[in-house]
């Protein structure tokens, strides 16, 4: 694995979420994975984006104030939510029919690794520290029109999470179309990784150094 030469000023999780949110067009139907992807909802306030939750909801609104909690409204992360006007409810088969049938414009998922052919590994590190669990990750990976991955560019030990070939168990084959990391935005194309944007002060070479696959210029 490549060893970064210099220490970069990286984006926070909130900044990463905001950067990703900026690219979501008005009117898109979007599913946000559990964890960091959930933050994306905080940065689309000026646009009408319709959020889906796997447990059977479309039109998920912001978190309620404590005094306004509706105990029968939770999202797939088991957090209390609200519904927007225009929201709808349905059962789990319909909810995943919607996902698998290619109706979601976008799923934002976390990732352990993304390969240059778009393969995603995000459900198991093999070691299964927290025990095996897959949830809706494989369905979202296989089903959404666009799969954007929101993750740090490297592991804590400095290894690239953007790789030639995933070493962890796969979630879905060739499904990732874009990656938002704490230093860059990278398109996954038929030719491999293409740098789309980088964080302030981060150069192409900075990103390539931290990517264990060939990075192409746009």
């Amino acid at each position: 694995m490549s060893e970064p030469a210099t220490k970069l000023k990286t984006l926070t999780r909130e900044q990463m979420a905001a950067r990703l949110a900026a690219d979501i067009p008005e009117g898109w139907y979007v599913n946000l994975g559990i964890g960091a992807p959930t933050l994306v909802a905080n940065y689309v306030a000026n646009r009408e984006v319709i959020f889906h939750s796997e447990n059977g909801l479309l039109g998920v609104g912001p978190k309620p104030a404590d005094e306004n909690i509706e105990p029968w409204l939770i999202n797939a992360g088991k957090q209390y939510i609200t519904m927007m006007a225009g929201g709808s409810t349905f059962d789990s088969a319909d909810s995943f029919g919607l996902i698998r049938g290619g109706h979601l414009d976008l799923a934002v998922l976390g990732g352990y690794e993304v390969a240059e052919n778009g393969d995603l590994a995000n459900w198991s590190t093999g070691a299964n520290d927290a025990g095996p669990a897959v949830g809706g990750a494989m369905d979202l990976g296989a089903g959404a029109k666009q799969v954007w991955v929101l993750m740090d560019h490297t592991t804590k030990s400095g290894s690239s999470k953007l790789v030639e070939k995933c070493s962890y168990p796969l979630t879905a084959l060739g499904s990732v179309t874009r990656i938002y990391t704490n230093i860059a935005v990278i398109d996954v194309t038929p030719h491999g990784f293409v740098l789309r944007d980088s964080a302030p002060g981060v150069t192409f070479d900075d990103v390539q150094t931290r990517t264990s696959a060939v990075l192409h210029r746009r």
Partner: protein
Amino acid sequence: MLGGFGSVGLPNQLLDGLVAKGVRGITLIANNAGAAFGSMVTLLETGAVEKVVCSYPRNAQSTLFVDLYREGKIGLELVPQGTLAERIRAASAGIPAFFTPTAAGTQLGASKEQREINGRLCVLEQALHADVALLEAWQADRWGNLSYRLAGRNFNPIMAGAAKLTIVQTQHKVELGEMRPDEVMTPGIYINRVVHIPYGDPVL
């Protein structure tokens, strides 16, 4: 087979009954199995559950399931959530098997028949039947017609019909016709027994 997503739409009191009855050798089909409190914990702790068929047997507040699993005291069939839902719906709808792109080319699809359809690799999945389904509803009438409250719908409507015996605990009993034809979310044909248990709101 157990309705609910997390604690919303989960038939807690029917689970209590399962504990009280001392049923053992259970294969539990449910989206979540990593309970932190309640009768699910008792069922797991007492070894009443032999195997779990589940997409997410993990819970932020508890490592009970994971510990049992690591010790080899409980079996697990991990199923992607959408495939789990579709297999249950298939059981109810008389579809014995179907192809899906979900899990194709992954560990969870590895032991299954795979086939390329329209250029896309798919796995063949089987309908998932149960002996008993325990469900939670918001309203029920004498015929067993049901409605659910908001996110309480989830797996309940599709499990109705996927088991030989379907038992529902309902928050509210209503008269026939109080639900308009369009308001009935699960027709009574799928339901064998209804128990009126006004237990109140779910606790996360």
